[in-house]
């Protein structure tokens, strides 16, 4: 941590050259590089969004939302993918919300410092870093093959459960942070009135942590909605001519459909892929907006 450009020998002999103008020039160069990097990053993002809007806006029409995939790009639509994604999100929300919040309540409110708690915490840390395609391989072996009588093989249920496992660590971490932000005086007040731990958590801590929890859950769901690799790994296919009718139906999802269209050689399919991306991104932005709304309301009331 020595200041650069100062040499002890020069200082001792009285010839210390501050070289201020040179150092200020270096400063300017560095500041320019930092600003340039930020601007370049933002410009690349703008370029990405711009290309997709240019390619995709032209082919968005009512037919695009109500039609099934087709070999002719002008007739192709995203109806099964849209419904598949909605079904998937219902399964993911219904399983990961209670499990993630329950696990976080256990870790934050009930757990004592024992081997089980430490084990769970290490596992959550590691699971957050596992590539999503590995979850796909787990889903392929466990949900699609071993549990086939329950899940129906390549089905909405298999896909949803795989994605649930993928986002559980995210939900647990976010919920724990929200629970930790609840002031301890609130718990103590509950105990002073004679409530036991669960009654305090259920009637005081959880309601006041809820906006934070919901923010975390929605952000986690918005991650699940764009995941492609695990769904391909468990065998979701793009060419399906029906919407799911039960949890055991075969399905396709928005990212799978987009992947399939991007991979085709004809340029017409690329532009409907861009249209699909626009629809997906609008869904994501809406979810993010809801999450930000919850976060702001949360911050105002405290």
């Amino acid at each position, binding site marked *: *941590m020595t200041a650069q450009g100062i040499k002890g020998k020069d200082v001792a002999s009285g010839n210390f050259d501050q070289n201020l103008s040179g150092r200020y020039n270096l400063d300017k160069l560095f500041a320019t590089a930092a600003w340039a990097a*930020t601007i370049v990053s933002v410009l690349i993002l703008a370029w990405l969004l711009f290309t997709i809007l240019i390619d995709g806006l032209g082919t968005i029409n009512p037919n695009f939302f109500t039609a099934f995939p087709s070999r002719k790009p002008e007739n192709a639509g995203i109806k099964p993918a849209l419904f598949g994604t909605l079904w998937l999100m219902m399964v993911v929300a219904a399983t990961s919300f209670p499990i993630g919040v329950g696990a976080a309540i256990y870790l934050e409110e009930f757990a004592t410092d024992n081997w089980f708690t430490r084990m769970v915490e290490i596992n959550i840390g590691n699971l957050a870093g596992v590539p999503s395609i590995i979850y796909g391989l787990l889903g392929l072996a466990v949900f699609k093959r071993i549990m086939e009588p329950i899940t129906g093989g390549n089905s909405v249920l298999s896909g949803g459960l795989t994605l649930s496992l993928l986002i559980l660590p995210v939900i647990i971490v976010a919920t724990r942070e929200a629970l930790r932000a609840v002031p301890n005086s609130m718990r103590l007040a509950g105990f002073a009135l004679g409530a036991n731990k669960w009654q305090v958590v259920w009637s005081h801590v959880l309601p006041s942590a809820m906006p934070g929890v919901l923010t975390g859950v929605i952000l986690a769901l918005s991650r699940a909605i764009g995941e*492609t690799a695990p769904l391909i790994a468990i065998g979701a296919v793009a060419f399906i001519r029906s919407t799911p009718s039960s949890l055991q139906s075969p399905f396709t999802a928005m990212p799978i459909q987009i992947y399939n269209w991007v991979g085709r050689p004809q340029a017409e399919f690329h532009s409907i892929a861009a249209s699909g991306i626009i629809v997906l991104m609008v869904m994501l932005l809406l979810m993010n907006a809801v999450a930000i709304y919850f976060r702001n309301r949360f911050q105002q009331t405290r």
Partner: protein
Amino acid sequence: MTAELPLNDIAPGTWRPNRSRSQTIQLIVKIICGAFAAISILTTIGIIGTLIFEALSFFGDLPGELSKDGQDVSYIQGVIHFLTAGRWTPLFASKQFGIFVLISATLMITFISILVALPLGLLAAICLSEYASPKLRRILKPVLEILAGVPTVVYGYFALLTVTPFLQLFLPPVEGFNALSAGIVLGIMITPMIASLSEDAIYSVPQSLRDGSYALGSTKRETVWSVVLPAALSGIVSSLILAMSRAIGETMIVTLAAGANPTLGFNPFVPVMTMTAYIVQVTKGDAPHGTIAYETLYAVGMVLFLITLALNIFSFWFVRRFRQKYD
């Protein structure tokens, strides 16, 4: 949040709350929540278990697949073949299983992505924390987080249909599928992650350190370079390693833009096949359970899992070892 005490209809002294029932409910809830927490352990066991189980049966079947030419192959030779062979052709008639072909492609693309993301991300983090006004910081931070949440299939579209044609304008040897464009876009994808996490680390360096450096006569760049960055080093390195591990496990960009041609070598202009792209290629066409193709999935998955796990553990260790604590 109202207290549910029946104040009006109970005479003083006769209210008897059912404590034992409350305690029973609490015990049941505690057990259920504990079971939910245990799911994370079960997931880890499930991942490691399936990977090891199928990878072991792969190595069990490997000698049989390799000895079709006539001579016998031992298990040890099978493992050596897996690690050193120069070709990866498990779906062809003459099967070769040289995992290093896939690893080399993954490494090359990850290297290109870090080359793009490290300077961009780190400089953007410095800019946001040290140079930008608080107002701009408040705007750009959420933008970074949204950028980090863009689905990877979107980046794949961008790499294949925008960046590759753009590169071909300047570099004619670039082919339709290539490692260069996949690596660049992968770098763009992990830049927000590096920027956001490094910015947290740089921003949390106490102001007193900067003031001390200014008091000694340093300029702003000297302060950032020789005081702030060393103080935030553990956070910066861990963000870099996490981003690297993300890049290695990333699937859609490389599947769409880098192609599906397992070649050994480090030429970024030609199609290559990464570990993740191989998994997608096999699972897309149905690979029945019990075939060697199905088992290679888990052998490749095992290698991928071990690499990312090693990186994550190294990152945790590095943060614990080098973190500076300021009160």
